[in-house]
């Protein structure tokens, strides 16, 4: 009875906290009003986007859309690969249904939070100091930066898996690593790949970091075009990115269906 009332108390507290946060957030919200200039500017932007600057697609001297996309893919691919490998031990050890020691789980969760909180730009700075500006630094920054996100998402999804298969492995006397390989991996593999591919996509779009880092790729021209409001240029770059991401989606779908 006492335990139950404690649970109710804690639940009420949780609900009240969330409720309070919402009330606080919505209080003092200004009214939405549309600006007079909006039609003119938005239509200029949209019409610009829909008249992409085809001339930028290919330029014999290099430094065109195709080259930018290629560089971006190379950086994103390698960055994702590094992150994909580094995140595995973290996600495993931060899942509270795999590792039972609270301290280990807690430490790993903390580490993941810390990596996530660490701003991309500071990470970029660190690697620029180490290896100089350029694609290499970009790969390292993306590779390390993504560990926080992947580790969290994957460990969360490990925590939600069906444990019955795991039981069978426990019963055969498998140690945690073997259990992980045989009972957990096959179940989280689809999620793992989908997170990895999502991260790959994020990395392709990580224009800001790559722009800061001088890594080349499509990010810097995109930022430049946006800041001087060259919508035709923005349009063609976005088109390029969308086409590329769609292609990657298709290819990765094929790969995924093979691996899982």
């Amino acid at each position, binding site marked *: 009875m006492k335990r139950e009332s404690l649970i109710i108390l804690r639940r009420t507290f949780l609900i009240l906290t969330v409720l309070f946060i919402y009330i606080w957030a919505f209080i003092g919200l200004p009214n939405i009003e549309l600006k007079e200039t909006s039609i003119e500017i938005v239509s200029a932007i949209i019409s610009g986007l829909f008249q992409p600057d085809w001339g930028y697609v290919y330029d014999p001297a290099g430094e065109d859309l195709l080259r930018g996309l290629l560089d971006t893919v190379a950086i994103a691919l390698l960055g994702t690969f590094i992150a994909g490998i580094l995140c595995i031990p973290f996600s495993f050890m931060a899942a509270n249904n795999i590792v039972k020691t609270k301290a280990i789980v807690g430490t790993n969760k903390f580490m993941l939070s810390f990596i996530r909180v660490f701003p991309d730009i500071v990470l970029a700075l660190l690697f620029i100091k180490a290896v100089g500006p350029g694609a290499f630094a970009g790969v390292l920054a993306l590779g390390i930066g993504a560990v926080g996100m992947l580790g969290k998402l994957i460990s969360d999804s490990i925590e939600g898996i069906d444990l*019955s*298969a795991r039981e069978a492995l426990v019963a055969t*006397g498998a*140690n945690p*690593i073997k259990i992980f390989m045989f009972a957990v991996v096959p179940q989280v593999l689809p999620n793992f790949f989908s997170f990895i591919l999502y991260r790959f996509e994020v990395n392709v779009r990580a224009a800001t970091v790559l722009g800061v880092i001088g890594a080349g790729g499509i990010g810097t021209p995109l930022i430049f075009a946006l800041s001087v409001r060259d919508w035709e240029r923005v349009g063609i770059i976005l088109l390029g990115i969308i086409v590329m991401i769609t292609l990657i989606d298709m290819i990765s779908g094929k790969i995924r269906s093979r691996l899982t």
Partner: protein
Amino acid sequence: MDILGKTTYGEGRKAVNDLFSDGLLFTTLTKVGKRLIQFKNVSKIYPNGTIGLKNINLQIEDGEFVVIVGLSGAGKSTLLRSVNRLIEISEGEISIHGESITKAKGNELYRIRRDIGMIFQNFNLVKRSSVMRNVLSGRVGYHSTLRMILGLFPKQDKELAIEALKRVNLVEKAYVRADQLSGGQQQRVSIARALAQEAKIVLADEPVASLDPLTTKQVMEDLLRINQELNITMIVNLHSIDLAREYATRIIGLKDGEVVFDGPVIEATNDTFTSIYGQDMRKNEMKRAAK
């Protein structure tokens, strides 16, 4: 006990049962026998307050074929799972061959568990993996962690797995994903996994629940054979009284988490089962008779 176990086979089972027909003799024998699995004052209370087991004291000898019977929810699965510590008991201690599994840790615990095969009530297959991989997973206890991370099973293991699948008539599905199997086929994969494990004790939680009579017979014969030929101890939860009578050397009756019967098959009369399954059964029968 070992020798006795080996000489009995098939119909010979009856003779062995006769030997134990005297309850007193039975208990005396077990006291001097090699105590394989020992339950001392074991209780289990689930976090939500349900009582799973209540002060269980049992000893099971090498080579026995124990069948556990009881109503749904009586605690049969709980008892079985506490043997290899799939669930942590709340009180008491369980030891296997003199080693306390309750206190075992790390590699010691893994080794003890490796020697205990388990067939699960709800199969516990990795649905996304192939049948073969599910069966091979019974072998992981034998190899180094690194090897297992790379998924490198020796050739013998694969042959062993195929062998186990043959025994349950499922070899043609070896490379099919487990979720594409029928219910009975899934159960057979789970049995093959336990066979491939080459354990010294096998815990079987309703191993034939989803099987047709033919496969049931095959599986039970298989369990009996490995019990007798390899002197492997069997602890099996069964719902079928007929099967229990046919294969067991000893029957343990559970009710509400307590042992209400424990003795050789011969002692388990119809009245015994009636008392295990509670008064309801009698009431129910009376009702029907009244109509």
